[in-house]
């Protein structure tokens, strides 16, 4: 067997953390090789080293048997290595063709026409169906990903790295991607697939390298290893991804949304004629691919975005045009999508972050004067109750905490404020299994305490694990709302692509 890629004894240290510790990876020619690990296990670091974005402190890289030094992406391109990044590396206001040729324009004054022709040839050959004159911000996420793939193929790469490629795709788009990967492998390309999703590995990969906390754990044959065994190797102990919860005991309606229309940043309707109601004691999950109006919906509910038309009622009172502060006071909690941008003031201490919504109320202040004693007391209470770990307790700047602890701090703040409705957007993104379990338990606890929870997530597993009902969004519309127990991932996937049940039966 010839190894097309060998990374031997790779070590990479960042200030305060060993991201890769003596990791060895061997990829055979023409295979699809998966790298499995939790968020933060060191997969991306390893691939960044292979792609020339980082330099290993120790270790050897061999490509096609020859030892090489890869010090920049250019070296990687020259060796035929290409990478599809998790966060697409595309310039939003450039055309597809401009994005593809960027860095390989072929001359100071470039010829976009002949480049477009070559792009079309490649696109046809692998069945990618891309129009090279379209501007990136006008095409779908799935198409953007195919542009990324084209970028590699345009550079004649035959070793392709896919970094968490399915995070933003619908189940059907994922199937298409898997097919594209199989086509590529059949054409003799070698593929490295980085992921933490087992079903994808099961679907396409032949072998799988498992990493945990920067260390190589095992290399397994995918066919002969069960998903449960791989999961246990990834996490370090047997895990069940199922969340334990009892039957929902629903009460009266807390939130009622009627015919809501909301503009998005491009000044067109991002949420269209959306109606939904949420009751006490249930978790309603909103399923959909990123960018289908979920953010606009949540911002409209929390008061961050103006409503174009329609009404929102909270415990029977209309709040369509209420201020954010009024909604907070009525009992609307919100775990925001971007914890570092919206959720926390990173340079400020935790104690400040905990009272960011309450500082003007007694006992945290009186007649405009802050009471630091009470503020600190409250902070201590939250970090103890929600096990928020930090360097200097409540005095630690929020930015010094790990991602999981930052998220616990936000969840602690929102739950401790005792909301009637908790809106949680992507509450576990980028976290490890331990933190995910903790957060899932807390959300279910809120539900069992008779609170209403609105969960927005792009991870279908999470939606299915937690939700009592699932509302599916596509292009700003509510496609359908179904009971979790009456549906499956395939059906929801079709709805996420905009196809409704009745329409399907007609086809």
């Amino acid at each position, binding site marked *: 067997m010839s190894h097309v890629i060998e990374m031997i004894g790779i070590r990479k240290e960042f200030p305060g953390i060993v991201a890769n510790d003596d990791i060895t990876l061997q990829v055979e020619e023409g295979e699809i090789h998966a790298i499995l690990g939790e968020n933060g296990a060191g997969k991306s670091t390893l691939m960044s080293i292979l*792609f020339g974005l980082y330099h290993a402190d120790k270790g050897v890289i061999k490509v096609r048997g020859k030892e090489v030094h890869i010090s*920049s*992406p*250019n070296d990687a391109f020259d060796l035929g290595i290409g990478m599809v990044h998790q966060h697409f*590396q595309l310039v939003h206001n*450039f055309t597809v063709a401009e994005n593809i040729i960027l*860095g390989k*324009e072929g001359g*100071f004054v470039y010829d976009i026409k002949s480049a477009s022709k070559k792009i079309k040839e490649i696109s046809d050959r692998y069945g990618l169906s891309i129009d090279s004159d379209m501007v990136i911000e006008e095409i779908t996420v799935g198409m953007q990903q195919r542009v990324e793939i084209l970028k590699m193929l345009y550079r004649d790469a035959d070793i392709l790295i896919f970094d968490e490629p399915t995070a933003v795709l619908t189940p059907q788009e994922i199937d298409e991607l898997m097919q594209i990967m199989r086509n590529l492998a059949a054409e003799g390309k070698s593929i490295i697939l980085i992921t933490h999703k087992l079903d994808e590995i099961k679907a396409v990969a032949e072998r799988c390298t498992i990493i945990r906390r920067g260390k190589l754990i095992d290399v397994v044959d995918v066919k002969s290893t069960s998903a449960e065994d791989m999961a246990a190797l990834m996490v370090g102990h047997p895990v069940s991804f199922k969340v334990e919860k009892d039957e929902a005991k629903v009460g009266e309606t807390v939130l009622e949304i009627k015919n809501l229309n909301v503009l998005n940043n491009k000044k067109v309707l991002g949420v269209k004629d959306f109606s939904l109601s949420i009751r006490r004691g249930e978790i309603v999950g909103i399923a959909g691919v990123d960018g289908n109006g979920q953010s606009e919906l949540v911002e409209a509910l929390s008061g961050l975005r103006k409503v174009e038309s329609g009404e929102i009622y909270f415990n029977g009172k209309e709040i369509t045009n209420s201020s954010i502060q009024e909604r907070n006071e009525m009992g609307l909690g919100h775990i925001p999508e971007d914890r570092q941008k919206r959720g926390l003031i990173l340079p400020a201490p935790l104690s400040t972050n905990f009272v960011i919504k309450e500082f003007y109320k007694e006992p945290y202040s009186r007649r405009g004067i802050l009471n630091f004693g009470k503020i600190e007391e409250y902070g201590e209470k939250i970090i103890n109750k929600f096990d928020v770990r930090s360097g200097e307790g409540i005095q630690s700047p929020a930015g010094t905490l790990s991602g999981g602890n930052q998220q616990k701090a936000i969840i602690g703040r929102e739950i401790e404020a005792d909301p009637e409705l908790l809106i949680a957007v992507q509450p576990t993104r980028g976290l490890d299994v331990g933190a995910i379990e903790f957060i899932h338990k807390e959300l279910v606890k809120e539900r069992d305490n008779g609170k209403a929870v609105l969960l927005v997530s792009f991870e279908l597993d999470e939606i299915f694990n937690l939700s009592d009902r699932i509302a599916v969004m596509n292009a700003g519309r509510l496609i359908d709302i179904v009971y979790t127990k009456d549906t499956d991932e395939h059906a929801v996937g079709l709805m996420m692509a905009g196809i409704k049940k009745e329409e399907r039966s007609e086809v």
Partner: protein
Amino acid sequence: MEVWSVITSIIPAAIAYTMPLLMGALGGLYSERSGVTNLCIEGLMLTGCFASATVTYLMQSAGIGYNLAIVCGIVAAMLAGALLSVLHAFAAINLKSNQVISGTAINMLATALTLFLAQTITGSGNVTVLRGIIRQDIPLLSKIPIIGPLLFTRTYWTTWICLLIWVVSFFLLYKTSFGLRLRACGEHPSAVASAGINVHKMRYIGVILSGLLSGLGGACILATYAGEYNSTSGINGLGFLAIAALIFGQWKPLGILASTFFFGICMTIANMGRVIPVFQGIPTGYLGLFPYVATLIALVLSSKKSAAPIASGEPF
């Protein structure tokens, strides 16, 4: 035909006032498109004005040809601007400092340093050149009706250089791999890095180009209508007008050509108001504040749609 005579006296002057602004704004365009916010256009232009004044003055006093002295002055201005812009580039790109503060520091440094040197060289705060550029009619073209008297009469040769630079910049930005890469750096630097291009290098080029062009703009001020480096008024906030023109022109070459010309007309009205009959009744002070208030109004009007490069001001 009194209106016509007013127009023929305003437009050539407005063109002269436009060129320094255009160079400053174009410089800002390169810098911001590469992803570095550049608020030190004012300082760079001032430095250019001072450097060209000093070199031109010294050479003219030494009896070297007037025009050669002016050319050398312009080259010196561009070099001085570029040199100072490296300070901003270093702070913004390598040290990832607050680009607004760094720009302000450089503005202050330019003011203080040029004044310090002017004091050392001439003993007073001012450096006055013996002769600036002589305005000339373009043969033949100036005889064309209507546009002849407006565009080709009493022109400075620097105007044509500035316009040429504008044309070249248009081509560079939109037709070459350099332009593609530079624009990409201002929108999504990590995409550029992942394509194997050195983002820091591109940004250095962008900032240094802004230094060269702003320096040239400063030299134009000197060699055309000002004739001196004046320590008390400096360049009256022209560099900030150039930044406003960049915003008003939506970070596009054609847009900034139009917006700088608009500000050029405002400047003409402010400076020549007293000799134009229509504006004679207005007090000097109110004429003087006209361009700045016009700028504020222009900024308010263009506020709704901002085409600013997304990554401008973001360290990488």
